[in-house]
């Protein structure tokens, strides 16, 4: 019973969330005493065999260039066709934009139990139980899967990438691609910026910053740390920042290693988007701000005073001052 890992890529490179899924899948294969295999649709810039370093022995590769754009219906058919002959197996997807579109379709095709939002390796001692976050990060659920095929969507930044030596055997997946029904007209990416959902470090600003003209220090701190920038809902609603920076219950949910919240009070709706962060730092001049209850570190102070000093300290740390 193999572990099959879907390799998601963009603009020629494999996404970080996919490398995490590869490492997770390889570890699961070791845990089950079986092998890990990759599934690659489309083309990447580097030699796919090198992905063997992440623990996959074999990669099923459908190299048609038309597969470089997502059509969830096409992907699901191809993936199901690749694994069906095995009769059973565990499929691992990154729970990113691609995984969210494709994994549920694959699960239906294979009549497989599906868990999206997994945060740890399955417990295979008695059955197959996968832990995921629920209630927008306020709790965990342990989900049992009993079907021959099982599909797991692994949350980004929930598993550390492990790269070693190794070369994967490439097997051509030659089944004809179904005709896509979704036509991609254009894409727009802010190049050079770290995508929020994959960022390990995030610096976020709220209404306490008083206006969009004050975001320079947020961007500077983020840039120095190699962090992505985010914001609270009122800031996005007021168009101070683009809506795709809005983290919260009805925005994006993230789970970075570090979340620095500046001038954000910490309403429950905001917390729901960031409570899976490993370390939360709160800078707020209101000592009663609810966010301090969810924080690991904090400064009660004026952001306009504190943040420039944080920037100076980071510069010194990085040998830039």
């Amino acid at each position: 019973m193999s572990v099959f890992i879907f390799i998601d890529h963009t603009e020629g490179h494999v996404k970080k969330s996919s490398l995490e899924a590869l490492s997770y899948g390889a570890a699961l294969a070791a845990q089950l005493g079986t092998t890990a295999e990759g599934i690659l649709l489309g083309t990447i810039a580097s030699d796919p065999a090198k992905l063997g370093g992440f623990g996959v022995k074999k990669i099923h590769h459908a190299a048609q260039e038309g597969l470089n754009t997502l059509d969830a219906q096409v992907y699901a058919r191809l993936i199901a066709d690749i694994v069906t002959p095995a009769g059973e197996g565990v499929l691992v997807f990154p729970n990113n934009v691609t995984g969210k579109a494709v994994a549920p379709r694959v699960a239906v095709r294979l009549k497989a139990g599906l868990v999206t939002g997994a945060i740890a390796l399955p417990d295979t001692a008695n059955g197959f139980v996968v832990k995921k976050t629920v209630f927008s990060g306020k709790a965990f659920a342990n989900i049992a899967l009993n079907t021959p095929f099982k599909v797991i969507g692994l949350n980004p930044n929930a598993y550390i990438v492990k790269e070693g030596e190794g070369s994967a055997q490439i097997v051509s997946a030659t089944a004809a691609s179904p005709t896509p029904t979704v036509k991609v007209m254009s894409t727009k990416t802010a190049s050079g910026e770290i995508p929020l959902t994959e960022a390990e470090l995030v610096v976020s600003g709220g209404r306490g910053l008083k206006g969009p003209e004050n975001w320079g220090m947020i961007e500077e701190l983020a840039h120095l740390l190699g962090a992505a920038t985010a914001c609270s809902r009122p800031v996005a609603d007021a168009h101070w920042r683009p809506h795709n920076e809005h983290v919260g219950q009805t925005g994006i949910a993230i789970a970075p290693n570090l979340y620095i919240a500046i001038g954000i009070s910490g309403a429950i709706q905001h917390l729901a988007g960031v409570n899976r962060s490993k370390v939360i730092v709160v800078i707020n001049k209101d000592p009663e701000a609810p966010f301090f209850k969810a924080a690991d570190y904090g400064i009660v102070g004026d952001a306009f005073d504190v943040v420039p000093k944080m920037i100076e300290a980071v510069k010194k740390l990085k040998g830039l001052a």
Partner: protein
Amino acid sequence: MKILVCISKTPDTTAKIAFTNNNTKFAGDGVQWIINPYDEWYALVRAIELKEKDASTAVHLVTVGAADTEPIIRKALAIGGDEAIRVNADSHDPYYIATQIAEVARTGGYDLVFTGKETIDYNGSAIGGMVAELLDLPYISLATKFDLNGTTATVVREIEGGEETDEVALPAVVSCQKGVAEQRIPNMKGIMSARTKPLKVVEPVAAEPLTSIVSFELPPAKAGVKLVPADNPAELIRLLHEEARVF
């Protein structure tokens, strides 16, 4: 054109999360229930807007749930929609729910199925994709914009660090998030008419859930914030580097 909007009942965002029955059930007593925000603010409102643009459009709502979901369904009808269908079943798991919705969609001959991006209680983000596969239809997930020209939809969807614009011919399934529409407050007229709009109850089709919840857990309590004096932010940076080791 017929649009089916999937509506789910979830606990209010500020609800206290607790479990009973040896941590196998969500403690729902005393909880304030709401329409899943993604369903209400984005999927439902966009469907209503499409109907406002073309009055011949029918907007139907579907919920898989017991009779206690009817107040939520009426709340949704108060915002808009012509009628609602309640599949009289507990929401056993995403596959089970999707099977019921797909059956309603198939029977009703809908051109477009809208879901919210995920529910705020189980965060599965799976229903739309499952329904699409069960109906063998195209699926675009995490839409931030939805426009229709005849029977061709132009959908902007979220990708890492940006957005992609797609075109797809109906019938199709689309999951919706922020950007697709703006939240609406129901007006008096809506609230009054919701009472008399048809709410049809149908029995579920036979289906097996493919997963089960073994138990729930609450996260360990946080240790409490370590405060650094405002006159020494450099100390915070030192702690993050040397103690927390986050950079």
